[in-house]
């Protein structure tokens, strides 16, 4: 059991370094066991240093968006360890700014050549990069239904229409 965990950690950590470096444009990430001799007695630390920041930064002191980018890198690193034919992501871009949302949507798009990616999102950047679009709505009566004849323009419009109405 211990050898299996150490082997999994080694591989996931290798993936994590590569993915985090790509998603943070040059930052450095690393996974550490708190107690390498007795791994089940301790936890697993995640350390991430965004580009341009000090190497002393702790995960706790990073910003909301920076933490999400580190966590998403770990999720992709775990997926690479044991690839699945399809993935489902639910609003993972909630607290990301536009450039980071684009990095994540592009990462999903690239990965969707090898496996199917389905992503729930409200962000325009992600909607633009998707191949297919599905609209879900409720008609004020509490019943969900799929919007038929839905495509990229209608998806972006759904957000923009509401924005126009908002302005």
């Amino acid at each position, binding site marked *: 059991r211990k050898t299996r*965990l150490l082997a999994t950690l080694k591989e996931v950590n290798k993936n994590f370094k590569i993915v985090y470096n790509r998603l943070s444009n040059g930052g450095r990430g690393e996974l550490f066991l708190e107690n390498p001799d007795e791994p089940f007695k301790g936890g*697993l630390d995640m350390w991430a240093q965004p580009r341009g920041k000090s190497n002393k930064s702790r995960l706790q002191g990073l910003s909301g968006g920076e*933490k999400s980018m580190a966590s998403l890198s770990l999720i992709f690193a775990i997926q690479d360890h044991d690839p699945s034919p399809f993935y489902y992501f*639910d*609003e993972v871009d909630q607290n990301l700014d536009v450039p980071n949302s684009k990095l994540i949507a592009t990462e999903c798009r690239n990965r969707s050549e090898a496996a199917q990616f*389905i992503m*729930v999102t409200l962000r325009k950047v992600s909607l633009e990069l*998707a191949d297919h679009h599905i609209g879900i709505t409720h008609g004020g009566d509490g019943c969900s239904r799929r919007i038929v004849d839905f495509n990229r323009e209608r*998806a972006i419009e759904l957000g923009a229409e509401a924005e126009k109405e908002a302005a």
Partner: protein
Amino acid sequence: MYLKSLEVENFKSFKGEAVIPFDRGFTAITGPNGSGKSNCGDAVQFVLGARSAKVLRAQNSKDLIFNGGKSNRPARNAKVTLVFANPALSNGRRRLPIDSDEVRMTREVRLTKSNNTVSTYLLNGEESNQKSFHRILGQANARPDGYNIVLQGDVTRLSSMTAVERRKVLDSVA
């Protein structure tokens, strides 16, 4: 292998039948707050074998059955079918160890007369159970754990969990 479509019937906020077709590649689902987007994710987890009703944001399996919304009659059953495309690969094998181009995996929960819930599993229309679902999906690596399905809030939870909880995540994929 990929998910060709999701068919729901009286599952959470979906009244009656609804079919959501998927393609290969990158698909985005969008819509207003409370419209039912996360309920689609819950539907997928429900068939794959969610760890517990709590993961589906439900107190118990009764909460998974359409409750009528504002002014409709509550339903007595909820059914979800995942339709997988399962073509034969060049070596003659298929990702899902079932000998058909399309695999339909159905899970249904029904209210009995005494208001308890009964769960049934169907594989291409024939009776099955959760264990075989797990075995079949496990062979294709389509398991519900290991962050193949990232539910709303999972990303923030991963960055704020304790180091021991994070090590347990690694345990579950080791």
